[in-house]
């Protein structure tokens, strides 16, 4: 018996010329949510699929709840559940039929399988839609039935692969509530996401993954602290003023300001906060109108940029997420 939920050493998966997962070492404790954060194509899903025994590693080893994913794959399957883009339900069947099928496959007999299916449908707010084909479900309902299918027996470890991708904010909050309920019950959740605020909200610890490698690991606060003690966000009222504002800020604070895809914004990491008031006055004196002037912890977006040298997401996805 081990205290670790997941333990890997040099875990690797190669597809052709691409090292989809390139030597990952993980030691993830039981309990809570562990976030796997990275952009599309970073290798999150490939890593999760190896851990859930769906594909076999090309090199390295992995233990899930103390069982080897290759040699004791069947034992691992008995302890974990998987929900995600690649582990879904049958769209042609109704919600109830899907849950009954999974229940039967876990060994529930006819009546017990139906009772278990109905209990989950009720809990996930799907009782009204129980006899509708899943292909007619909304995005949020679809995600709920996917998660419900993973909870037909209580797994010790649940893999959630991008559980909120494509959901509207309300449906996303519902999924977050479900995840928090699972954690409160003692289930370990391993969550992959490309949304920085999702990892921030849910995950106790975060592994940042990029191009198949883990590039940072820690709590959200630790990751932010690694970038600097604070970040100054300035947004000018008129985009034409940005260059002038930047010159003043650089002069007063002695640090370099970065521009982002927002044409009005300026961002800089600060080690020393003492000159901030002076800088604000200087901007006022120069008649530069400000929409925002804030000093705070860096966002995970900035952390990602600092760690990888490139942004986590395309601007369009940013906008979608902010909606």
């Amino acid at each position: 018996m081990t205290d670790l939920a997941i333990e890997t050493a040099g875990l690797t998966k190669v597809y052709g010329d691409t090292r989809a997962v390139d030597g990952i070492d993980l030691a993830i404790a039981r309990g809570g949510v562990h976030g796997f954060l990275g952009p599309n194509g970073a290798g999150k899903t490939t890593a999760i699929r190896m851990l859930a025994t769906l594909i076999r590693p090309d090199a390295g080893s992995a233990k899930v709840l103390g069982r080897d994913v290759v040699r004791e794959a069947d034992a691992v399957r008995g302890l974990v559940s998987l929900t995600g883009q690649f582990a879904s339900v049958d769209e042609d069947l109704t919600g109830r039929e899907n849950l009954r099928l999974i229940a039967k496959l876990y060994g529930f007999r006819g009546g017990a399988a139906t009772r278990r299916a109905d209990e989950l449908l009720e809990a996930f707010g799907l009782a009204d839609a129980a006899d509708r084909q899943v292909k007619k479900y909304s995005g949020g309902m679809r995600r709920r039935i996917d998660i419900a299918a993973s909870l037909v027996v209580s797994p010790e470890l649940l893999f959630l692969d991008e559980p909120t991708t494509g959901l509207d904010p309300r449906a996303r909050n519902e999924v977050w509530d479900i995840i928090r309920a699972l954690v409160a019950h003692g289930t370990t959740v391993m969550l992959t996401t490309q949304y920085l605020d999702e990892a921030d909200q849910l995950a106790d610890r975060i592994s940042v993954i990029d191009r198949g490698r883990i590039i940072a690991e820690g709590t959200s606060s630790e990751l932010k602290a690694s970038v600097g003690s604070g970040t100054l966000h300035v947004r000018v009222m008129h985009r034409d003023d940005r260059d002038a504002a930047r010159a003043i800020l650089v002069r007063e604070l002695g640090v370099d300001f970065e521009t982002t895809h927002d044409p009005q914004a300026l961002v800089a990491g600060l080690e020393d906060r003492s000159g901030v008031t002076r800088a604000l006055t200087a901007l006022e004196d120069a008649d530069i109108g400000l929409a925002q002037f804030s000093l705070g912890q860096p966002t995970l977006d900035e952390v990602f940029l600092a760690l990888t040298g490139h942004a986590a997401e395309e601007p369009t996805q940013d906008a979608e997420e902010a909606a």
Partner: protein
Amino acid sequence: MSAQSTAEEAPRAPQVDAIASALTSVERPPRPSALSASMSFGWRALLKIKHVPEQLADVTLFPVIMTLLFTYLFGGAISGSVESYIAYIAPGVMVQSVLFITMYSASTLRTDIDRGVFDRFRSLPIWRASALIGMLLGDAVRYTLGAAVTAAVCLAIGWRPEGGFLGVLAGVAVLLIFAFGLGWVWLFFGLILRTPGSVTAVSTIVLMPVLFGSNIFVDPSTMPGWLQAWVDVNPVSGLVTAVRAFMNGTPVGPELGMSLAWSAGLVAVFGSLTMWKYRDPR
């Protein structure tokens, strides 16, 4: 947040308390047997037929068209009349219809993989082959229907099998066993080929020479030597001969044993290949 939305629309939102209690209330039952897991997957296939009855078009319309087309197209030319040809072609066209339908197993599997259902099944602690066997069991229902439709059409246009009802039944049984073996070939293709389109294309290319280069429509003695050689080694010819013997009430020769051996061989070879690929598909 959750308490609020629960109060506002109790029936539609997930209920966190109920989820928590659903997690604790469950006691894990003992693992299902291999047979029971396979039957559950077979049940799934039947549910899919219930929800998407259009998918029966291939097993109902296709045999009708095949039977009418080939009987009337070739009947006159080959035997002088449809009446004398029907006894020869009816068992053959049944074999052809059913074997043609088996090919769809590959695209069914491919669709499951693409939609993500397949990974859900593979992540369950069950006997690994059961999902695929269940799929083939469900298909067996479709094959039976295809055979029944073909038989009905043949009977309607004058087929009077000498082997009687039991003879026809025995012929269908041999055919279904062979179809089960052939199904593993398509499942293997479904796993290694990436798109439903390529699955169908490759399956057709494999199936055409096997179906048409056989004794289904014409007596091989009229064929050139090289083609006769192929027809003789083609397992479908042996199958057709065996099915014909049962249905026409003539003595069943060594072809029966050969057909069963081929079926077993296909399961052994392609079943193993499929299960090997099943562990780590792309």
